[in-house]
């Protein structure tokens, strides 16, 4: 399969009153056509910025360096208008919170047909038929009456389905899903993820799934990039990562997922401490202060991205399963 998206050495920083905030450091990622990548990390690790920067949806205070190649075209050097041409039809995004990502004063039909008429130049009748078809694809019962409803009349799960319908309306090749299930009920989360995966399979759409939940990416992605403080700290095919994880951070993330078999009343393991200040550029591994296996070397020197073979990369001096 051919490469759809290639991000080379991308860094993103924001100008803030407290100085330059580095949100993404030197990230290199490749995505094939129809493939799905999970980007995992805790809040503030730079995963949302990574996806928005790739699309070009950053505010004016941000600076982005590095190269982004989409379908063989270097889009990081294109003028804004031409990148915008790709939005919707080439790349589309599902947002985290379906409560705020729909306009409260406009009907579902108007919001759903907007990109169809504006981007694809459909007339109103054709757009309405297409909208009904889209609503059926995202399993919404009675799609015709749905077109006349306002967002406040729908539940969170329904709204997220509408958001998905809007995102796939122009048949993009690459879908960014920015924590699509975080704002939803646990019972609805699985349904929404299954729906996204099914839609992807139908039209061979690639996806970047951003989440903080390792459990979510396990069944829905081909490979995973674990992010910490703006760095990709582990990057591997999904099976490989779960069977043979190298990073203490990945391990800690996995441990902090609640499990059915843990005895009642026991405390959930948490990762102690906080992310380092992104405006300061301190030496050493950024995870050193929170890592259970920390050594003096970790505090002094930042580990490079190391290849463990089988497309498995990690950023640690003392990987799990290696020599201590």
């Amino acid at each position: 399969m051919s490469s759809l998206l290639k991000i080379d050495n991308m860094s993103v920083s924001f100008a803030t009153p407290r100085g330059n905030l580095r949100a993404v450091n030197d990230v290199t990622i490749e995505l094939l056509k129809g493939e799905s990548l999970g980007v995992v990390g805790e809040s503030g690790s730079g995963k949302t910025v990574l996806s928005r920067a790739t699309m070009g949806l950053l505010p004016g205070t941000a600076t982005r360096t590095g190269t982004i190649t989409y379908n063989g075209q270097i889009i990081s050097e294109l003028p804004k208008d031409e990148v915008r041409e790709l939005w919707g039809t080439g790349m589309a995004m599902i947002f985290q919170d379906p409560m705020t990502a729909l306009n409260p004063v406009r009907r579902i039909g108007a919001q759903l047909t907007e990109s169809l008429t504006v981007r694809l130049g459909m007339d109103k009748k054709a757009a309405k038929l297409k909208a009904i078809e889209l609503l059926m694809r995202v399993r919404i019962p009675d799609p015709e009456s749905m077109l006349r409803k306002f967002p406040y009349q729908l539940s969170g799960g329904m709204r997220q389905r509408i958001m998905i319908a809007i995102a796939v309306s122009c048949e993009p090749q690459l879908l960014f899903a920015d924590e699509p299930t975080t704002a939803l009920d646990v019972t609805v989360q699985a349904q929404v993820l299954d729906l996204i995966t099914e839609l992807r399979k139908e039209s061979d759409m690639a996806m970047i799934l951003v989440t903080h939940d390792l459990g979510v990416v396990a069944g829905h992605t081909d490979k995973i990039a674990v992010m910490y403080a703006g760095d990709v700290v582990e990057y591997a095919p999904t099976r490989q990562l779960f069977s043979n994880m190298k990073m203490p951070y990945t391990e800690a993330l996995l441990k902090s997922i609640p499990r059915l078999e843990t005895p009642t009343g026991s405390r959930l393991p948490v990762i102690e401490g906080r992310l380092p200040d992104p405006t300061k550029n301190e030496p050493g591994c950024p995870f050193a202060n929170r890592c259970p296996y920390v050594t003096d070397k970790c505090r002094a020197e930042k580990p490079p991205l190391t290849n463990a073979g089988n497309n498995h990369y990690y950023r640690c001096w003392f990987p799990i399963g290696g020599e201590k």
Partner: protein
Amino acid sequence: MSDVQQTVEVLPKLSSTKKKKPVGFYLSATWIGTVVFLAVFGWLLPTRPWDSADYDALGVKPFSPNHPLGTTGDGYDMLSGLVNGAKISIFVALVGVIIGGSIGTFIGVTSAYYRGMYDRVVTMIFNVMLSIPNLVLSLALLSVLAYSDENNPTTTSRRVGVLMLSLTIVVVPILGRIGRASALQWAGREFVLASKSMGTSNASIIIRHILPNVAPAILAIGFLAVGSLIIVEGSLAVLGIGVPGGASWGSMLANGRGNIAYSPHEVYMPAMAIALTVISCNWFGDYVRRALDKRESKI
């Protein structure tokens, strides 16, 4: 058993009282409707000509058979005067708010959406304009643009034109700032970003996503502005630089104020018309805002 019955009875009552509009809504809507009707169709009514005096009835008190609202000391019929005055007062205020409001909203919303240098310049100009009191600004514009003395008198239509222009200029920064503040709040919302991420153009986003959300605030303040422009028009007339010859409510008030001692109705009739219209505009604007805000508040 009786408890259950009570709850059943209470429930529909609650929902019906919630939907009922307050009396003030109907009162203000009726008054605004009447005034607008008189302003538009008043010339079709069989009232006496407003600009010719009845010399047999000078300073007649209200509720007399020929002159239901009385006459002025010069014999002009108050009712026809008020009906005719509605035309100018409402027209001048409405045109000022509609044109000034459109310009102001456009500038305010675009500056909130695009930000940057454009926004800073716009905000600065709005602040400078707002720092000049409405009345002083209109006064200055009127006396420069519609200056008249005995040798070259200004025509009434030119005066009305300049009056509308100056009221328009007064409204631009008021509604512009409301539009900007409201649009700022909406421009940062995720649905704007979501629409942008689908490749929608900026103009489209402003028209489809931001304006419908800004509209309630603009409409509510717009109605308030209609009220205050009617007052500004009246004040200018009393100061002697409004529409001359008793052609508007303010002008009638200005003409009648010398006779307040022996025929007070000459002052309080137009004053009441102004007051009722202004209060109705405020009330009505408030209900409009509340009605349009419902969808948002339900979230």
